[in-house]
């Protein structure tokens, strides 16, 4: 009990004369803040991207593509094959019609507002079932495109990110002119980066005959995916890859988010090491400035343990302040910040928001605490072992 009171008293004394050492303390705080800021900012990019990709996929929707294709863009299915899928076991029916959408996925060059240069924007031809096989896609402006007409509806995120996609305007791709008749939202998922039109119209415009690239179907229940897989893989007329939509989008997200993390974690570790040096420096100078004070305390009967802890606490508190400042800055500056990038897996643009999530901030604070503890340990030991007589003589 007495030990605790000592620690408390010495720590309080330390903190009260902190303003005298403000220069090096502020530098230590800034060092830690920068680590947490960069950690949260870089990883919030990966978080936001994953959220956009993965929230698009659901477990009860299956996506069927040609075997071996790595994305919808490289797949190809004939009209007959889509009919086989429509009648396969496990797919949900609404009366007599299957809840499905056979789709075509192409890329068009549209100017990005931020750079004013062409970007690969995904252009999807869909069937009427497209809204039913996806969760949470709703029209928020204008109206639905009419089948058989050159009309497009645009994802909200694409509309914000790319030039000339406002509802009511027309846009020209090659020889064909398209009217933009509406806009849709999809809970911030990857679908919002896309342009949608009637699949038949897109097939004609891109001379794709009656071919498709993917089929999405709603599944009857949890075991249905396996039934569908077994049935289609046994059918000699079709050579498909069948997976849940969630699985598909996770796969599409993996390379880029792995790349960001591969960059983010080593970066954080390296910077943390740099920040530990900063903290060490500031704590060593704090200990040497307070040399006489510490010696006096020891002479008055305060134990070495209380000196050790007070120095550790000072360092940890400074780091914690840095962590909070860095985390708050990351949240204020980056959270919700919209960007778009080329996702290599689909060769097309994905629009997403940075997501500075609570778990990122908490991990950032852990990093700050670790930096503070490492930065304080050696100086604290030195303070505790300082020979009293010699330190006092220097008075």
């Amino acid at each position: 009990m007495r030990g605790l009171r000592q620690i408390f008293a010495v720590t309080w004394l330390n903190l009260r004369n902190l303003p005298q050492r403000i220069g090096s303390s502020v530098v230590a705080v800034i060092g830690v803040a920068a680590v947490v800021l960069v950690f949260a900012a870089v990883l919030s990019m990966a978080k936001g991207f994953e959220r956009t990709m993965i929230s698009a996929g659901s477990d009860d929707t299956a996506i069927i593509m040609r075997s071996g294709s790595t994305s919808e863009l490289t797949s190809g299915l004939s009209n007959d094959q889509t009919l086989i899928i429509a009648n396969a076991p496990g797919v949900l029916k609404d009366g007599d019609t299957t809840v499905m959408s056979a789709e075509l996925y192409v890329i068009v060059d549209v100017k990005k507002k931020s750079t004013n240069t062409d970007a690969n924007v995904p252009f999807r031809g869909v069937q009427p079932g497209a809204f039913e096989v996806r969760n949470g896609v709703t029209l928020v402006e204008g109206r639905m495109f009419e089948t058989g007409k050159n009309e497009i509806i645009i994802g909200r995120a694409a509309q914000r990110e790319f030039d000339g996609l406002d509802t009511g305007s027309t846009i020209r791709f090659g020889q064909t002119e398209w009217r933009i008749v509406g806009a849709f939202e999809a809970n911030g998922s990857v679908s919002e980066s896309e342009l949608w039109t009637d699949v038949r119209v897109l097939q004609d415009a891109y001379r794709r005959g009656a071919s498709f690239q993917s089929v999405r179907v709603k599944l009857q229940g949890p075991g249905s995916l396996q039934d569908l897989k077994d049935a289609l893989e046994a059918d000699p007329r079709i050579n498909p890859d069948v997976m849940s939509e969630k699985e598909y989008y996770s796969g599409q997200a993996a390379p880029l988010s792995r790349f960001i993390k591969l960059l983010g974690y080593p970066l954080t570790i390296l910077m943390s090491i740099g920040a530990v040096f900063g903290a060490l420096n500031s704590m060593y100078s704090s200990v040497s400035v307070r040399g006489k004070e510490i010696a006096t305390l020891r002479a008055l009967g305060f134990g070495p343990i209380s000196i050790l802890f007070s120095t550790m606490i000072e360092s940890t508190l400074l780091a914690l302040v840095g962590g909070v400042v860095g985390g708050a800055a990351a949240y204020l500056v980056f959270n919700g910040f919209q960007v778009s990038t080329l996702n290599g897996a689909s060769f097309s643009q994905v629009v997403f928001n940075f997501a500075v999530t609570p778990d990122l901030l908490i991990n950032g604070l852990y990093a700050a605490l670790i930096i503070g503890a490492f930065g304080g340990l050696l100086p604290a030991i030195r303070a505790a072992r300082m020979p009293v007589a010699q330190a006092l003589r220097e008075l």
Partner: protein
Amino acid sequence: MKYFRLIWKNAWRKKIRTSLTILSVFVAFLLFALLSAIGFAFRGGVDVADAERLIVIDKISLINPIPISYLNRIAATEGVEFVTHASWFGGYYQEPRNQFGQFPVNPQTYFNMYPEFNMPAEQFEAFKSNRSGAVVGQELADTYGWKIGDRIPIQATIWTKADGGRTWEFDLEGIFSTDDPRGSTALMLFQYDYFEEARAFAKGTVGWYILRVAKGADPVRVANAIDLQFANSPNETKTSTEAAFAQSFTKQFGNIALIVTLILGAVFFTLLLVSGNTMSQSVRERIPELAVLKTLGFGDRGMLGIVLAESILIMLMGGLLGLGVGWVLVQGIAKGMAAFLPGVYLSPAAIAGGVAMMIGAGILAGIFPALTAMRLSIIDALARA
């Protein structure tokens, strides 16, 4: 130089502090080295682009194929020296994660177009005379341990064969390299004729054309003439210089590269701030000693020089060590990521920039303490001691 020993001794007066400062500078420049090398890769070959080469793609999107019949019409356009073509194959080796560029090409004209790729003449001849032959860049051969004579199966993701198969097999006939350390050779080339004959669909098309502008011709005028020729046809074209083409790709990664750069700038600045602060702190503590030096007859200029030199010396020690370790790591990263992110390279310009930043940071961190030392009044300073 004759004061080097004095500066050295001064720098190491407080061993722990100096070591810690050097280590934080080390970390800052290690980061700098890694990030400028990765940043170089993100610029995507803009620096190695040839101004005399133009790329012709479909106007709607790069993924749309263009008829092979355009070849002769482009070649006949005024100001075009010669033309070749390539297509995107997009397969993988063994596992989907082993992806790299594979392009069906016309061997003769393609290698004429890219003289920077060197390959022994007998290998080139063997490649030309084998329909199912292929050549790969040195980087790729190293990554997968391929030797000449190997039979390499590539799994197609797009191009099924007319017989329904997805596995394309190639005989490795040659390995090419480039003298330019910035250029990537993580690619595989094979015969367009074989590709054209065996693929199931989209016959009679290529992915894009590459042409060389004749000497003295204006690239912009040539590009416009080509696009005009195909205007209002089913396949309108978009012609740009190789540099502009590469740049448009880089820009597609968009704000991400920019944001990473900004974040890193902030990091770097902070680390320098940390080390700068300790540096000025250590000079402040030594004011009495500096006064003694002045008493011994060191002039104002000398004092300025000694303190500045110490600051620069500490930056250089940490910084050069950081760049050196960074350089070694970059070699490893470049090898490891050759297929995924080709062109990771620490350019001489980046190294020079780094050294300039060390000296600049040394001056910034040292200038105020140095001025204090210069203006020091001996009496006051000694009295403080």
